[in-house]
Every structure is written in C-alpha cells, then in structure tokens.
C-alpha cells in the first residue's frame, strides 16, 4: 500500500502542489487568452492528474533501494520512468485541455504551447524526479519508524521472556532441600520447623510478587535475600556465614527485581555447598557519585577445577543489566584466591522511600 494514500498525508502532499498550480494559473491568464475560470480549471486538472501520476514513483523507488543497487541502475530506472511518465502527462494534458476548454480557446492554447512542449516535457521530468527524491525520504522515514517499532516489540518480547525466567527461577533443588530440612525439624525442633515454613512461604511470596514489577528498591531485594539465606542457614548450619555491608543511602535505590537473588544462590550452590568447612557470603552495596555498586562475594573451592558452573546464571544477570541500562551498567566477575566476587555497577535511580 502506498504510504501517502491516507487522508492526512495525501492532503499535505496535494497542498505542496498548490504553489505550482497558482503559478501556472497566473501564467495562463497573463500570457495567454484564458480567463481565470478556464485557466484554473485547466491548471488544476493537469496538475492534479500529474500529482497522482507522480505518486507512482514509490514503486520504482521501492524496487531500487538506495545503497543496495548500483548508481547506474538507479539513474536508468528513474530516468526512463521520468520520461515515460512525463510523456503520458503531456499527452494527457492535451486531452484534458480538450475536455475543459471551449473550442476557440483550445486553438489559442495549442498555438501558444506547441513550441513550448519540450520545456513542459522537461518540467514534467524534473517534477517526477523531485517526486522520486521525495519518495526516498519517505521510505527512509518509514524504515526508521518500522525499525523503531520492531525494537519496541523485541524489547517487549525480551521483557516477557525475562518475566517467565523469573517465575521459573525458584530452584527445585533449593525447594526440595528446604522441605527436607523442615521434615527433619518437625521432630527435632517443631518451633524452628514452623519458622522455616514461614520463611519459605515469605520467600516464595516475595519472589512471585517482586517478579511482577519492573524495578524494586534495593531494600526489598535485600529482604528477599535475608529470607533465602536464613533458609539456607538452617540447612548448612555453621557452614554458612553471612556478612552484610549495606550503606543506608543505597537501600532506597531502584534495581531490577530478583537481580541479586540468583547471584546469592550461585554463591551458596557453587561456593558454600562445595566446602566441607563452609565459608562466608558477603553482600555489600554503596551509592557514590550517582552510581550504585553492589558486591556479592563468597568463599569457593579454589582447588576444584569446576568450570564456572554458575555461568548460566551470571550470563542471565549480565543480559538483564544490558537490556535495562545498556552501556550504563557494568558487571565484573573475578576470583581472588579462594574468593569469588561479582561486582555490579548501575546508575543510581532513587525510588520512593519505603513506608
């Protein structure tokens, strides 16, 4: 479908022809024998017809996209089209004059314009070529709008995928192990078993709830991590030690939901769980110079050759950061002796302080 054939755009396009029509009416009246009425009728008929004829430039323009066909082919295509279209126009112009004008005026016009037919033909060619240029601009605009729409669409798709991933994120291993701990506690320490049930319920509820939002306060994510680590502490006992260094100002900054949870889960699964003597997980955050930096650090088995099994989780976090902040964020992963460290840096977006 031609992009100009909508009511608004067509109106604008035809408006662009008005000066040309006005000029020709003026010329027809002052230089020839036509009265205003007949001059107007002729000019409007001839140029209206040509305006629509020039719209056909869209098709050769589409067929020869700029930059993808050779210049020679481009030139030939449009020149041939211009000559043909202009020829049709001049011939049709004669017919139109025949239709609109009274017989005696028609003869006068014929006498007046026959010698100038070549220049009229040339004007037709030039007008057509102008229309070609105009259509290329139009196509470029359409393309960029289309690309933009596609980008928006892919962003929406990415977000959908992300949400799905988040919902599926509760690790079954974690869930079954927690249930096993509860099952053990029911006889050893029923009060603790109940506490653990509540922790687990809170963790699940928060995971589901936070996953729905596009951004949450760091403090909300930290509350989730607190539940998660409390549950894992029941399982690992003294093997799991937790350190927190959270700067107060950073608590009210916004982050994508469940960004840190997979990192902490990795720290437990690939760090603490592989150490017979256990280790420490350290969560630190601070806000400085408009940047929020978050560090998750854990002890790991440096002797194990285990190739980064947390790779998938880390890649996911990286992708989410890039999707949301583009080049404004960074994620660094490094090991230092028996410490495994993930450092995130993102723009500090203040959120409403929690009630």
């Amino acid at each position, binding site marked *: 479908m031609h992009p100009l054939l909508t009511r608004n755009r067509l109106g604008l396009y035809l408006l662009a022809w008005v000066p040309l029509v006005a000029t020709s009416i003026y010329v027809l009246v002052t230089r020839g024998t036509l009265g205003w009425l007949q001059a107007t009728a002729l000019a409007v008929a001839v140029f209206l017809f040509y305006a629509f004829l020039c719209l056909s430039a869209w098709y050769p323009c589409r067929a020869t996209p700029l930059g993808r066909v050779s210049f020679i082919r481009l030139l030939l295509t449009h020149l041939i089209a211009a000559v043909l279209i202009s020829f049709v126009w001049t011939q049709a112009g004669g017919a139109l004059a025949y239709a609109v004008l009274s017989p005696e005026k028609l003869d006068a016009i014929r006498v007046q314009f026959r010698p100038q037919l070549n220049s009229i033909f040339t004007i037709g060619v030039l007008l057509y070529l102008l229309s070609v240029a105009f259509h290329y601009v139009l196509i470029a605009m359409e393309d960029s709008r289309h690309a933009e729409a596609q980008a928006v669409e892919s962003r929406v798709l990415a977000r959908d995928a992300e949400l799905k991933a988040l919902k599926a994120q509760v690790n079954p291993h974690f869930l*079954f*192990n927690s249930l*096993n*701990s509860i099952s*053990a506690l029911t006889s*050893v320490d029923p009060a603790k078993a109940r506490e653990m049930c509540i922790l687990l319920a809170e963790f699940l509820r928060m995971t589901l709830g936070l996953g729905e939002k596009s951004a949450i306060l760091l403090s909300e994510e930290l509350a989730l991590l607190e539940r998660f680590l409390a549950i894992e502490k029941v399982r690992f006992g003294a093997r799991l030690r937790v350190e927190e260094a959270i700067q107060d100002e950073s608590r009210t900054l916004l982050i994508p939901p469940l960004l840190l949870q997979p990192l902490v889960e990795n720290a437990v699964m690939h760090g603490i769980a592989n150490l*017979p003597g256990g280790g420490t997980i350290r969560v630190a955050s601070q806000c400085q110079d408009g940047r929020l930096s978050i560090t998750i650090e854990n002890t790991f088995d440096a*002797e*194990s050759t285990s190739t980064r099994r947390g790779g998938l989780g880390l890649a996911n976090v990286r992708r989410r950061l890039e999707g949301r902040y583009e080049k404004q964020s960074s994620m660094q992963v490094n090991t230092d002796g028996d410490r495994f460290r993930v450092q995130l840096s993102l723009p500090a977006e203040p959120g409403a302080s929690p009630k």
Partner: protein
Amino acid sequence: MNASAKKIRALIVDDEELARHVVRELLQSHPEVEILAECANGFEAAKAFAEHQPNLMFLDVQMPKLTGFDVLELIGTDVSVIFTTAYDQYAMRAFEVHAVDYLLKPIGRERFEAALERAKSRLGAKMPPAHELAATARPPQQFLERLVVKDGTKVTLIPVTKLDYAEAQDDYVALATQGKKHLKQQTISALETGLNPDCFVRIHRSYIVNLERVVRIEPYGKDSRLAILTDGTRLPVSRAGYARLKALLDERK
C-alpha cells in the same frame, strides 16, 4: 540364609546435619540396624568405611569435594548402598538404569521402609560399578572434571587439566600428573569415555594423552611413531592413534 536375622551395620553419609538426622530417626524403629557412624563428607565416609566395614550405606549424592559416586568408587562395590538426593534428574536416571535403590528428599516413612527391606534382601550383593553409575549420571555433553584416586587410605583428587597421560596396566590405569603416577582401578577404555575427546586422545591401545602436553610426533620404526611430551616423556603412537591425533590437531589449526 535368613537375611532379616542378620545384623545390619550402617553408615549415614550426608553433608547436611538435618538430612542425617532424618535417616537416623527413621532407623529408630529398626533395632536390627546399628548405626556405626555418621559422616559429613566423602573423605570421612571412606575413612569410616575402612574402619567399620559396614554392609549398608545411606549415601547422599551431592556433597562437597567427593560426590556419592566418588565415595562408592573409593570403597568398592561390596556394600549395599541406598542413595539419597533432593533433586538431580541425571542421578535419578542413573539409579533407574542400574536398578540402584535411592530415596528422594524429603524422605517418607513408607518409601524408606521399602528401600530398607530391599537392601536387607540384597545384603552381600554387589553394587554396579561406580564409574558406570557416575557416567550415566553425568549430564549430556559434560565430561569428568577431576579423577579420584585412592592410595591406601589417602585420597587424591586429580583435576583432568593436570593429567598428562594415562597408561593401561592390566586392570588398572596409571595416571601421570606432575611427574607422579597414581594407580587407579579402572580400565583405560572406561576412563576414555569420561574424558573430553577434544582434549584427550587414545594414541595407543594402552595410552591416552592430554593434547596440551604433546610437543611433537617423531617417526619410530616402520609403522609407528612416538609422541614427545613437554616433560620429555616419550609415548608410543599406533597407526590408528596417529590418525586420531592428526585429525584432532588439524581441527585445532
């Protein structure tokens, strides 16, 4: 033989205290089962096994350093094992394939009783070879990351990246790493299946070499060649072995 009259001597191996507690509690109604020890990791388990010679083990699959499969490999297969696992689809598949009993956590009373009954009736029967279990339990496209070797009571873990080459010696393989050799009871073919074929090549009926260690290949005799390793070791290369080696080296170029 009256199996139920036989005293059962059991070990409980799990790195989580609460998980061990569940098994202990479920065993309380079984006075015929004596709990010899509880172990929090694979090393303790191997040690306790040598010390107490149990005939039944409750063995967690996921443990730090040594997995349940590693433990089984270390202690041999002359013991009834009931594996325990929370969620490990590959391990579960391995148990199904090799008809090994296992319990899913949280462990229910009924399922536990059934497993114990079966274990009693099977006391003295051999377990399937540990490396076969471990091979079935490996997720697809994953290869061994380390090898477990026992020298007497000492357990050594060799990361595969540090393995220079392996040499078949009857029912054993000698694993050469950093100038030392460790003997492991395994066939060289079984070892080969666990190693990443992009890094390790069977250059000879009796040799597997770490590709990273090969410096050059020299002709030797009519039809055979020698592979020279970074530390100067010379290993024989058969004709078929040379073809495999060459294919892999060409691929790397």
